[in-house]
């Protein structure tokens, strides 16, 4: 099963390559370049060196003792991707793809971003390699993640505001694809999640696989056994697939993906694709899509911009249908409460995305004493300070 996707980029009935003809040959070229690079020891050596000395790998697998003891059940470990340079796991994929772009002779990088974490990581690697950087970001996301907009600009990126549709990640991806269709000869599209047309879901997963690989080695060292349950939030699904992949063959390890439950599970109020979606095609791949009866993509909502997206990565759809991973959702309010709980018990402020995963682990822990949990703490909460302030006014000095 780890040989997924097949040669044409399908994970069972999902994935594939659904793009305008202009992009087909460039995707074939990208796939060939990626396959050649992954087999090239010098590429791997350079990537490993950058992951170590630039990004800060390996990240700690931290035993959250106080959190676990407070809950009085399972033993909870946190995979600290939040400690990476630029503040989230996104840098793993950005370094890999930037090296690939350089190898392919592309001098211009475009990217989409939701929460801004992928945009910041992209801006950072572009500065590092001296590449031109254009980041598409929904106007609504620019408003709620304005600190990240500034960080990108400080590193020399051109952040382009996307004002159509829901003005969030979906529209930012559409706009990035339009740019790519136009400038395909000079430009590499540095897609930030395990989404899009083949080979992106494969390539992005592989660049994040290090998350699960490190976790596996470290937990065996510390506990002499594999974890019972692994938790990761799922927007497009990059940190989750990177974490899950090292454990897919271990049937006793439960893989739990947490989607954004938003305000409610009514269409338009959330981004829980498995709760309200059906198979569909968007942005190059077939997967579970939130859509209306006429096949129009639905609007979504989440307090967390990084999970606020209508389509789940195709490999997750396949893991879901096979029953190998289970998927649940966490509401805005639950994510906020989980963030506060982690901050108060461990002194760690998680990104709102990661707080969704924390919530599910916290919810299950009391009933599972003796079990080992690992939570992918995919990002840190600095970027969400404004949202936390809005939601915890009692803590704000300027508040009542």
């Amino acid at each position, binding site marked *: 099963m780890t040989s997924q996707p097949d040669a044409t980029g399908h994970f069972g009935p999902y994935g594939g390559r659904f793009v305008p*003809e202009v*992009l087909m040959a460039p995707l074939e070229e990208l796939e060939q370049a990626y396959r050649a690079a992954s087999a090239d020891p010098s590429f791997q050596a350079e990537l490993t060196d950058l992951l170590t000395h630039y990004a800060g790998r390996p990240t700690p697998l931290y035993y959250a003792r106080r959190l676990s003891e407070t809950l009085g059940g399972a033993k909870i470990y946190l995979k600290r991707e939040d400690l990476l340079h630029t503040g989230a796991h996104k840098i793993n994929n950005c370094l890999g793809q930037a090296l690939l772009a350089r190898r392919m002779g592309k001098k211009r990088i475009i990217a989409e971003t939701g929460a801004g974490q992928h945009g910041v990581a992209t801006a950072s690697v572009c500065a590092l390699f001296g590449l031109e950087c254009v980041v598409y970001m929904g106007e609504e996301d620019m408003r709620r993640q304005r600190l990240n907009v500034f960080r990108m600009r400080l590193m020399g990126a051109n952040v382009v505001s996307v004002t159509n*549709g829901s003005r969030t990640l979906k529209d930012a991806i559409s706009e990035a694809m339009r740019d790519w269709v*136009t400038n395909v000869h000079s430009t590499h599209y540095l897609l930030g999640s395990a989404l899009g047309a083949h080979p992106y879901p494969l390539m992005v997963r592989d660049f994040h696989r290090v998350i699960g690989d490190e976790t596996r080695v470290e937990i065996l060292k510390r506990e002499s056994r594999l974890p019972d349950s692994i938790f990761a939030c799922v927007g497009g699904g990059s940190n989750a697939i990177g974490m899950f992949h090292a454990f897919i063959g271990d049937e006793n390890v439960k893989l739990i993906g947490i989607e954004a439950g938003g305000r409610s599970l009514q269409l338009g109020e959330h981004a829980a694709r498995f709760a309200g979606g059906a198979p569909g095609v968007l942005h190059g791949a077939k997967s579970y899509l939130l*859509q209306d009866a006429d*096949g129009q993509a639905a609007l979504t909502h989440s307090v967390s911009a990084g999970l606020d997206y209508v389509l789940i990565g195709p490999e997750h759809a396949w893991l879901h249908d096979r029953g190998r991973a289970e998927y649940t959702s966490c509401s805005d309010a639950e994510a906020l409460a989980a963030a506060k709980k982690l901050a108060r018990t461990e002194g760690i402020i998680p990104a709102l995305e990661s707080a969704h995963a924390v919530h599910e682990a916290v919810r299950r822990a009391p009933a599972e004493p003796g079990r080992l949990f690992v939570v992918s703490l995919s990002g840190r909460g600095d970027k969400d300070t404004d949202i936390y302030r809005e939601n915890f006014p009692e803590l704000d000095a300027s508040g009542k």
Partner: protein
Amino acid sequence: MQPTRIQKLFDRTRKEGRAALIAYVTAGDPSPERTPEIVAALERGGVDLIELGVPFSDPIADGPVIQRAAARALKAGTTVPKVLDMARAIRKTSEIPILLFTYLNPVLRYGLDKLARDAKAAGIDGCLLTDVSVEEAEPYVNAMRAAELDTVFLAAPTSTERRLNQVAQYSTGFVYLVSRTGVTGERADLSGSLVPLLEKMRKVTKLPLAVGFGISTPDQAGAVANLADGVVVGSAIVRQIEDDPNRLEALARSLAERMKK
């Protein structure tokens, strides 16, 4: 299989020594009720084939003009069944060939087989899905063939020789050549990549070749008519609908006058 209206059209225009004028309109823009009269005006002005666009929420291959049209059409309540109604209404008074033009998801949601049957019954002659590559085309092409609908695929300046061959194999009616890399929209000049693409495509197929993306003025249309079997004008038509639909017939006429080789 009987020749479709699309195939008969190109037989006729070839005999007449001219290119076919193909107009794209977004169905339901500005409202579902207006589409049949818009098509009638275009036909009076000399348009030979209508690409009837089903609006989609995320039109990644389209520039701002057609994006706005799709948004207007969706806001006006356009759905796939309503687009089929529009086709039926057009068919009451016209034999103009109609090519359904959209993205895969609305079609998938409606059901491939059901759409093919219902489209045929509504008087539609063929279909083009911008985001369906030949690699993913099998189920779609089979459904369309079973209903005797043409399937038109895109060829692009980036397409390799192998891909152009596949595009030719999967296409019936005509092949749609994308004149440049990029989204739909009006451009000041014609792309230098067009002539090489036409030459490569001619080598692999006898199907009529239509050219679109970026053609907006009568001069551009005339230049392309000298090279290809069909000239597609999209954004310029949609913009005219946005600005002043009463002048649509005159716009079509100014383009149709330039179709002679």
